[in-house]
């Protein structure tokens, strides 16, 4: 009995829904009607990414490697500077510097755009339950849709090359920026927000002066995730002609060149670890640059100390941070 029912279903008792056809015709329509828009986006993105790539390739590679390592040292630690210098020098020695910088440019541009779009969306999601409810399935869709599937429509709109790579990377990498911004702001102690209201602070000032600074560690964790996802997508974008390490990996696959593939992969790993450690240092306020909240908190004298000290957790009159790099040492 049950068997026949299932068989009936397989044989077409349920109507076939041509989701694919609808999507196809939808994309065709968009392509036909909005191609000037895509052209503008294309031109802008291409200029941005290629300009940044050229800028990264302009100085001697060793000099830039040293500069990047020093940046790591300033933000995090000397040990990190040394390790990243070794990694970056290895990139140069493997002759992977040029594709690595192309990938870095693509990642940075995509990440900046993703963050620039994602944080305001995250803020509005934190402010409105309705926005949040609408966004949630959209974000799920963006994150779980297999990355390769993005490539096809992107190519339809922008053709083969760098731009569809950037666009897919932005879409793929944006969700953490939105989610973690929302989470960070929602996690801010409601009593603090209430205190802002109680003293007559307007909502914009509460956002800038209280919510964003206190959500910053979480938001920075989101930025870190955006960069990591952008990097992974940038490699996949090699499949549709985006230059860089993705291209190297794709070439090695088509030639079955194990050595080249490994070099490309290793370069991605080096870049990934460098970017991850660098950006997470910003987020955790562990490094020597502790004053990021002061960018956001107008009139605050954040100075040297960071955000780590939570008001409720530490009642004792002792420094909160135990990390030796902690900026929370009392400045007596």
């Amino acid at each position: 009995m049950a068997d026949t029912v299932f068989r009936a279903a397989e044989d077409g008792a349920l109507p076939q829904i041509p989701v694919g056809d609808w999507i196809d015709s939808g994309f065709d329509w968009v392509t036909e009607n909005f191609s000037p828009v895509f052209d503008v986006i294309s031109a802008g993105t291409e200029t941005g990414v290629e300009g940044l790539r050229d800028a990264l390739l302009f100085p001697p590679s060793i000099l830039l490697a040293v500069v990047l390592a020093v940046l790591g040292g300033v933000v995090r630690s000397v040990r990190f500077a040394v390790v990243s210098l070794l990694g970056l020098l290895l990139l140069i020695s493997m002759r992977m510097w040029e594709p690595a910088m192309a990938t870095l440019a693509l990642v940075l541009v995509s990440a900046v755009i993703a963050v620039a779009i994602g944080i305001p969306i995250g803020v509005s999601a934190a402010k409105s339950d309705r926005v949040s409810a609408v966004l949630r399935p959209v974000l799920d869709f963006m994150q779980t849709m297999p990355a390769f599937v993005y490539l096809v429509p992107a190519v339809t709109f922008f053709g083969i090359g760098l731009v569809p790579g950037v666009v897919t990377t932005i879409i793929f990498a944006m969700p953490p920026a939105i989610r973690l911004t929302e989470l960070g702001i929602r996690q801010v102690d409601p009593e603090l927000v209430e205190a802002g209201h109680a003293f007559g602070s307007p909502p914009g000032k509460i956002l800038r002066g209280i919510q964003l600074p206190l959500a910053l560690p979480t938001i920075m964790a989101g930025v870190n995730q955006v960069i990591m996802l952008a990097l992974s997508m940038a490699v996949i974008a090699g499949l549709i002609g985006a230059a860089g390490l993705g291209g190297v990996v794709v070439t090695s696959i088509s030639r079955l060149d194990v050595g080249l593939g490994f070099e490309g992969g290793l370069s991605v790993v080096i870049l990934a670890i460098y970017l991850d450690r660098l950006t997470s240092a910003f987020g955790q306020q562990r490094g020597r640059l502790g004053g990021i909240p002061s960018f956001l908190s107008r009139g605050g004298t954040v100075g040297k100390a960071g955000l780590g000290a939570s008001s409720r957790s530490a009642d004792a009159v002792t420094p909160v941070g135990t990390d030796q790099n902690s900026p929370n040492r009392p400045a007596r």
Partner: protein
Amino acid sequence: MPAVHAEGLFKVFGRRTAEAVDRLRDGASVADVRERGATPAVIDVSLTVEPGEIFVVMGLSGSGKSTLLRMLNGLLEVTAGTVRVGDAELTALDDKALRRLRQEQMSMVFQHFALFPHRSVLDNAAYALEVRGVDRATRRAKAQEALALVGLDQWADQKPGQLSGGMKQRVGLARALAADTDLLLMDEAFSALDPLIRREMQDQLLELQASLGKTIVFITHDLNEAMRLGDRIAIMRDGRIVQIGTPDQILEDPADDYVRQFLADVDRGRVFTARHVMVEAPTLVAPTAAPAHVLQTMQAHRTGSVLVGDGDGRVAGVATEDAVRTAVATGAPSLAGVALLPPVDVRATTTLSDLLAPAAQDEVPVTVVDDDGRLLGVVPRGAVLAALGGVPRPAPSAAPAPADPVGASAVATKETIRG
């Protein structure tokens, strides 16, 4: 003009709130309204806070007291009713005007301090002024002053995370004081502190209040705190105010069994003061009075001692019956030569616990004096124990017990002895 005036306030959460208010007004029970999906938090509350008083709203958790407080500064929108702050009708203001009102006329102290962890103590204290747009130098100077008021000026550059709980709340208080608003709303401000610190903070608040004369609406669940701080107390239960009155009125005439139950937990030794148990001040015996006359009066009243004045309303000392008898025997013309015992003075605000020791000695009556040392009344010895034990206070006119050796009755009255 009252500092705050609330009239017929309702706050109902949930669905169909307006309908719920109508039903409550028509006398529907809370349970009845709840069944229809609305949750009343504050029901038909009216109150008036006079300028310069500490008005305490007391109730258990869930009684609606914090909700009530948040309607007084518009953090929560009222479901029905009006709130006036000064001459502004808060409930009629738009967002912008409401923010302005909060900036200029009211500040708030929070249960969990609500200090901004990313700002220094000084910048926390300066927050209200910053919001108001006061320039940096001025607001920092004012914040520093406010910190000095609460004794934390040394900590201005620290982060709140580096302070203890009591210190944090003093920063919270400084932040509210720096705003220099007339009205201070304090939401369980001391509840998160341990008892010793809490008492310290209460003292500090009373001290500050005495010098600054703010109007304070203070929320608490602790009746002892309410009694200690409040000029008037409103007791809330299930969203309604069951009684408003001075601590004395509430102690002496609890509105219902609920309030009475509360009072059972009051630490009477700390809440009642000499003012509650003292009886009318007797006329002091002039030092010039004739000993024989005094002795006669004492015997007539069967008392063992009289209070001798200094001619200016202060108590010079206490003359015992033996001393007066000696003076009569030696033929002294007045009480001037009589060896007087030093008076045992207490203030009207002395708590019963602190009265026990003075009342325990048996020769000299305990006298209650004002700041200038002038006699206000005397404390009958039995009255301290009676008040501690919750025995209703006898009417002020009650005749003194004839056998009382040194109590209130020990003192002659105006008619009998004149200087």
